[in-house]
């Protein structure tokens, strides 16, 4: 629980959080929540999760470390505790994951105080859901290739273009968006804005269906959408730098939602052992096969290694390059989840053919569903290939690949 090093204030907060979560843990819905908050599509789930986040915010468990004047708790080191306790309590995840992990830190760093006061409190309370608009059909891995244009018109900007891979856009009030304001330079031609999405003239949100057969992300079309210059973050031409701030805070957004809930990595790996002990292979249980055991243990070594890596990331004397560990996070978790669910399918054997809604599917078809979904994580927000480029270039100092 990491409680050992809490300050007295932190210890008191931890007690409060733990007690509050125990007393207020919501009853589960009759329908299963999707694996990740970015996959939420049903109105029932949205309402349930928005209510939950608002309650948490009111109890002081969300935005604990943000300044009070912008709706935060004004504390230090409280958010980590709140997240740990949410994880331990097994409460649902926080739905406004892109708002909390990407939009809020970006607005805090690059927005005017006026914007902070306007946007942050409803974001924390999940009164307004946020989405992000970076990827485009022709700029997936190559974010700086964005072509959605913003053209100045008096005190306004006119947006035209096409964003893809925008989770939560069907519910979203706002989007953080990277636009092209000049073609002279690939990087310096980018500017960063906040734009309204819901009930906005010229904005069309179209759900895309994933390979799982489920909705979960969207494409968003902009046709002469007018936004005020006040919604610009940082200077014209500084969009790439602002986007880097967003991406630095992104780790975890695809996964844990900065809050509690959801399957933890440990549960997932323990699930592999349980599955192997149940499934038959060659006349015995799969667990009796040393080759299966070895593969599960390989996953467990990686999972525990990642946990200890994050622990080490906070010990100054044991890290050399400040970005060496943080930049590994997305690559590690996404490939680990992929490999773990692929192994789950192998262990399930013929049963891996069974999908959602089949009574005989092991663990409610978790393994094929997770495996299919895992490609969303190894692709979204910088493919694994791009992550390795970034690590090689920014940490090891190798020549840029492009």
């Amino acid at each position: 629980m990491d409680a050992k090093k809490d300050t007295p204030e932190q210890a008191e907060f931890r007690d409060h959080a733990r007690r509050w979560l125990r007393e207020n843990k919501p009853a589960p819905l009759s329908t299963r929540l999707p694996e990740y908050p970015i996959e939420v599509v049903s109105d029932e789930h949205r309402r349930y999760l928005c209510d939950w986040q608002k309650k948490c915010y009111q109890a002081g468990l969300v935005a604990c470390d943000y300044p009070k004047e912008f709706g935060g708790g004004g504390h230090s080191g409280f958010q980590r505790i709140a997240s740990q306790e949410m994880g331990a309590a097994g409460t649902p995840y926080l739905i406004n994951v892109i708002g909390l992990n990407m939009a809020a830190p970006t607005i805090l760093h690059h927005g005017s105080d006026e914007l902070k006061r306007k946007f942050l409190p409803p974001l924390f309370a999940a009164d307004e859901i946020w989405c992000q608009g970076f990827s485009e059909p022709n700029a997936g891995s190559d974010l700086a290739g964005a072509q959605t244009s913003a053209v100045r018109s008096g005190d306004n900007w006119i947006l035209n273009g096409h964003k893809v891979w925008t989770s939560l856009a069907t519910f979203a009030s706002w989007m953080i968006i990277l636009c092209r304001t000049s073609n002279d330079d690939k990087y310096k031609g980018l500017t960063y804005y906040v734009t309204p999405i819901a009930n906005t003239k010229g904005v069309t949100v179209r759900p895309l269906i994933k390979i799982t057969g489920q909705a979960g992300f969207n494409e968003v079309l902009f046709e002469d959408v007018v936004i005020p210059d006040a919604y610009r973050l940082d200077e014209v031409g500084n969009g790439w730098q602002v986007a880097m701030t967003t991406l630095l805070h992104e780790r975890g957004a695809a996964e844990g939602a900065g809050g509690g809930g959801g399957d933890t990595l440990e549960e997932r790996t323990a699930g592999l052992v349980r599955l192997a002990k149940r499934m038959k292979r060659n006349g015995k249980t799969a667990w009796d096969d040393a080759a299966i055991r070895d593969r599960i243990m390989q996953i467990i070594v990686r999972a525990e290694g990642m946990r200890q890596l994050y622990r080490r990331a906070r010990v100054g004397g044991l890290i050399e390059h400040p970005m060496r560990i943080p930049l590994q996070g997305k690559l590690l978790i996404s490939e680990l989840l992929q490999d773990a669910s692929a192994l789950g399918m192998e262990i399930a054997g013929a049963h891996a053919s069974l999908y959602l809604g089949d009574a005989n599917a092991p663990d409610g078809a978790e393994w094929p569903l997770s495996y299919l979904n895992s490609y969303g994580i190894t692709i979204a927000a910088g493919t694994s290939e791009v992550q390795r480029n970034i690590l090689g270039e920014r940490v090891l100092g190798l020549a840029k690949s492009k």
Partner: protein
Amino acid sequence: MAQPKDFGFGEDEQMLRDSARKFLADNAGIETLRRSVAHDHHEAYESPVPPATYDADLWAKMVELGWTTLAVPESSGGSGMKMVAVAALAEEAGRAALVSPLITTLLATCTLREAASDGARAALTRIVGGEASALAITNADGVWDSADSGVTAKVTKKGATLNGTVHFVQDARKVAFFVVAAKSGKKVGLYVVNADTPGVTIHPDRIVDLTRDQAHITFENVTIPATQIVAPAGEGEAVLTKAMPAWLTIVAADMCGAGEWQLQTTTAYAQMRKQFDHPIGFFQAVKHPLVNMMVKIDEARSLVYAAACAIDVEPKSAERYARLAKSSASDMAAFCSGRSVQLHGGIGFTWECDVHIYFKRQKHNQMLFGDGLFQRSKLADMFDSAA
């Protein structure tokens, strides 16, 4: 080595393969495939009854082309072609991700022909006549296991009565009859059971793969006449053991064809899609995985032909080659499927991009009759006795 150098793949086999490729491109191309099974995701995964798409017209044409009688011996009215021709046809079916009971009928055929009974010959004659068939031999554990088929047979003077449940029956709702393994005491027999016989209940599974249906089937006092006994109790196990190399080879061949589709489709995308001012195939992070796909496909394909050839001319090595082929093809299919989605990037993760259709077929075939790990554990057993 008693095998011919060319795997028995001569002019006849090539003509069959080439015409099959053309026929499927014309009649079961990617547009047709998408329209028939991946048109709507709700329909695919949330229909009250899971879909079992069946194109009767296509089936009739394939029967006419003689594909369903390829593996039937000439003595039963088939064309009795070499196994390498059957494998080549299965490869084309995989390349097209064919939605049809063709593969399952080939599996049943290769089983029936190993039994020298009147019942088996009668069943083969039905296949020659255009009926489709499926194996029903797998218990709830997922791999055929002689110790427990899940169904029992009470043999009478007039025939037999079956009770129990058989699992993982492929394309169960597209066939006229099943070849069922059932036990009498410890003895396994094989029985032909028509899909519409009273007491037979087909329970469709909800499955990931869009290109087939699957079911578990319960038999409740299902009575069949003696003419439908393929192998009497005690003789079924030997038939299944002899037929098993053909199952593995056919499924592995299907995976090879699908793998080649994945390679070609992903390569074409890598040539066309630009990022960072280059076609993505310029980057070794894309180029080298594509090469690794190719290398794995070629290994698996070569082993498939060797297994097919062994079934015809070197039966004592057939199991070994077939397990090598299924091991190689299963791991290849897993790798190619993963890379086909990953290298397509964002679009590859969407329902509208066709790669998921092949991805899911490959994952299904990877597990069918045992994955690579399973095959290798059986291969290793063969070395136990050797010095």
